[in-house]
Every structure is written in C-alpha cells, then in structure tokens.
C-alpha cells in the first residue's frame, strides 16, 4: 500500500500524502473543539505513548498517569500546534517532557535515590504479560523472548539512562537536544547513552 497512488480531487497523491491530509483534517477539527476528532488522534498514537511511558517508568500505574497527563497537555495546547509541523514529533516531545518532569519530581521526593541500574521499578516487567497476542503474531513468535528480555534489561538501567535511551533510540532525538531537555550537556547525555548501551549489550549479548 505504501506509495500507492490515489486520485484525490483530480490530483494524483500517494497514500502517505492522503494519510497526512487526513491527519491534518483531524487536527484542524480538534483545534475547533471537535472531541471525536481529538479522540481519533489519540487512538492513532496512544499505544506508542503508553509503550514509551512503560519503557521509561517501568510501572503500569505510573505509565497510566503519564499517559493521561501527556494527552491532557496535548488537548489543552492543540490550538497552538502549527499544521506545518509533524504531529507525532510534537506529541512525543510532550510525552518526553512529562516523563522528564515525573523523574525530576521523583528525584526531588528522594524516591529515585537508587543504585545505578536498579530502580526497584520492576513491576512493569512482570505485569506486562509476555504472551499477549499482538496484531502480528508471526513476528511475535520471534519477538516474544527478545521483548521480555529487553524489558527486564531496561529495568536495570537508571531512570536517567532509560530516559536518554528512549529519547535517542526510539525517538531519534539528537544528543544535543536530549542534553538541553534534561538540563545537562550533550557530553553528559552521550555518557548516559553509552552506559545504557553497555548494560543492555551485557544483558542481551546472547541475542545478538
């Protein structure tokens, strides 16, 4: 289907363009207060948002709170979103900021004063059932073991390392940008990333 061409109002457009136009129409409607349009936008991205939150905080309860906080922020500020920008990038930045604020609050409350690599937040690992069917079970056959091992390995990173890894590996942000968001330097972000990857490589060495 990718790259398929459609005729839309007499103009040849690709499937991606049609998808993009549909999303922009949802955003415009949501900006005018159309709740159904906002709900449709949420459904397009919420699974990934929840995955992100779970990877970072490792606790389903906390991930649930961050999910809600992120989408409420998006709902309140969607009027300021510029249509020329990419919605998913903007959304994921909001999620990252929410996660970052959460980790800062935790640190300030002294709940995150844990030794490197052990954050005690391993609940997320056990409460993510390993045998839930995904929408592509053939791929899930191979991915099941890797996914659960990865989740366990992520649980052994510090919260900062998990956040930096999430921003770099899954969100593709630049190290300089990550440093700015976290209030540190690019060098510090790079070191967090290296430490995270070293630990992950140690935990997953037999899978690669």
């Amino acid at each position, binding site marked *: 289907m990718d790259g398929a061409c459609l005729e839309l109002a007499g103009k040849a457009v690709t499937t991606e363009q049609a998808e993009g136009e549909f999303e922009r129409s949802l955003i415009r409607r949501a900006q005018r*207060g*159309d*709740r*159904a349009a*906002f*709900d449709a936008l*949420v*459904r397009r991205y*919420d*699974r990934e948002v*929840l*995955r992100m939150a*779970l*990877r970072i905080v490792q606790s*389903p309860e906390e*991930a*649930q709170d961050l*999910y*809600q906080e992120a*989408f*409420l922020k998006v*709902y*309140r500020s969607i009027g300021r979103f510029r249509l020329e920008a990419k919605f998913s990038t903007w959304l994921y930045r909001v999620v990252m900021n929410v996660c970052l604020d959460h980790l800062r609050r935790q640190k300030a409350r002294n709940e995150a004063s844990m030794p490197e690599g052990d954050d005690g937040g391993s609940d997320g690992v056990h*409460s*993510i*059932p*390993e045998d*839930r*069917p*995904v*929408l*592509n*079970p*053939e*791929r*899930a*056959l191979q*991915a099941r073991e*890797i*996914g*659960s091992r*990865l*989740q366990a390995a992520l649980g052994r990173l510090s919260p900062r390392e998990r956040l930096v890894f999430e921003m*770099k*590996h899954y969100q593709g942000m*630049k*190290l300089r940008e990550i440093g700015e968001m976290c209030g540190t330097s690019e060098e510090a972000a*790079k070191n967090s*990333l*290296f430490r995270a*990857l070293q630990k*992950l*490589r140690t935990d*997953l060495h037999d*899978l*690669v």
Partner: protein
Amino acid sequence: MKCTEFEQLSLLYIYDELASGERADFEAHLGVCATCRAGLEKVQRLHRALQECPEPAPDLLARCRLMLDDALDREQLGWRAMLRAWFGSPGPLRASRAAALAALVVTGFVLGWTLRPRASSLQPVTSAAPASSFDLGNDRIRNISQVAQDPHSGGVRITLDAERRITMEGSLDDPRIREVLVNAVKSYDNPGIRRDTLDVLRAKPEDPSIREALMFALHDGNPGVRLAALNTVNHMECWHDTHEALLKVVEKDPNVGVRTTAIDALVEHLEEEGADEAVMTALEKLASADPNPYVRMRCLAALRKLQGSR
C-alpha cells in the same frame, strides 16, 4: 581513526551522531579493518534487537483510555458549565450576552457562509423543538452543514450533526451488551477493538451467539484477532466442531504464528480427550508436505507427543 576509539564511535555512527568528517574517517577505517567491521555488525545486531519491545497489556491500555475519556469529559464539562453559568445571569445581561454570542458565531462562520451556495429562501424550521431550546448536553458536534441568518429577526440558525457518546455498563448476561459485543467482533473496523472484545467474550463461551462470534473471528482478516479467538477456543470446553475448526486453522491460516498456536491447541485437546484419527492423519500429512518448514517441524513434534501419550 584507531581501533581503540571504535566502541564509542560505532555507537555514535549507528545513531548518526558523527560529524561528516568523522563519519568519513570511520567508514574509511571500516574499509581496511575486518575486526572493526565485525564489531560494527555486532553493534548493528544489538541495535536491531533493541527495536523489539513488548506490547502494553490490552487491559492497561483500555484503562488508560477510559480514564482519559473521563478526564477529557471533565475538561469539556468545565467549559460547558462556565457557559451555562454565563447564560444563567438574569434579564438584560443575558439578552446582551446571547446577542454577543450570536454575533461571534456569525463572525466565525462568515467565510463559510460566503463560500457556500446561498439558499434562495430560508427553509422553515422543521424541528419540533424551538431553536432557542437546544441543549448540546452530552452530544458532540461532528459537522456543521449550514449557518443562516434571518434578516427579519436577526436570529441565527445553525444546522449541525451531533453524535452522542454512550457508555454501556452491565454484564454479559445482559443480551443488549452481548449484542453490541458480538457485532463489534463481526463488523467493527478497528482490529484492536475486535481483539479486546474477544478478551471480554471469553468469559461466556457457552452462549450460542458468542460461540458463533468466536468461530467467525477465527477467520478474521487480522492475525492478532484470529490468535485471540484461537486462544479463547483453546480454553473452552470442547464442542463437536472444535477439532474441525482448529484443524482448518492449522491447514489454511496464512499466518505461521496462528497456525502453530492452533497446533498446540489441538495437542492440548487431544491429550485430554484421546485420539482423533482424522486429526492425526491431517497432522501427518502436514508434517511431510506443508510448504513451511517450521509448521512441518511443529506438526512432527505434535505427533510424537500424541503418539507418546497413547
């Protein structure tokens, strides 16, 4: 570039963080150093493996969605409550606020009004309720198809479509709940919802309409939905047609993951209930002739297990 710098540089290379000059040096070094090339391949394999991540549990996602729904309703309600309070003020103040709001609505839609083909005359109002008594309540605006102003009265008429969100609560014993869920499995276009619905229906598999929906879902277009149906069928008490349904999935499903799950389900059933020659014959045929090697291997393993338990 030296090999000792390789580890850090390879990670930066994979993540596209090297400046163009550094990147060129790194790639030039790879061209002449087999050890670093092998090391980079390992890093790339790790990078690919790290793309995998477990899916959030459907019940967690469902909870998140429900909570967000409530939170957004409260956000909206706050706004509506304010609006009602605004109109709740007495006498001339209310009239002037109503006029101000009407003027805002007209201003906001004046572009749409000028671009639309003008009606030759205003249609008489056909709705039973007078226009001034509208109440959006829980309805949400989907589409506004017309805005018109009466030149005599100065009033504004807006024609819109509204949808109402309904929340149904109850148990599977309620036939209305069952009807909605069975329809969702059969015809709702979102595979995630169809899958989640099957998880709910699994609690009452003995109901004929639910059983029919489960059998229907075994042929769903989405492999995840078919797998959810299979897992439900697998845990149910065996009907006369369960073996036949599972075997059909083993033989014909286009997805290997679904087929192997069906093989496991058949083995479980037969271990409990005893041999079914038709199933054994079919598994033998698949073990020798199925085009997929993994399916052949799993059928062979299933046969060994079943023959061992006889």
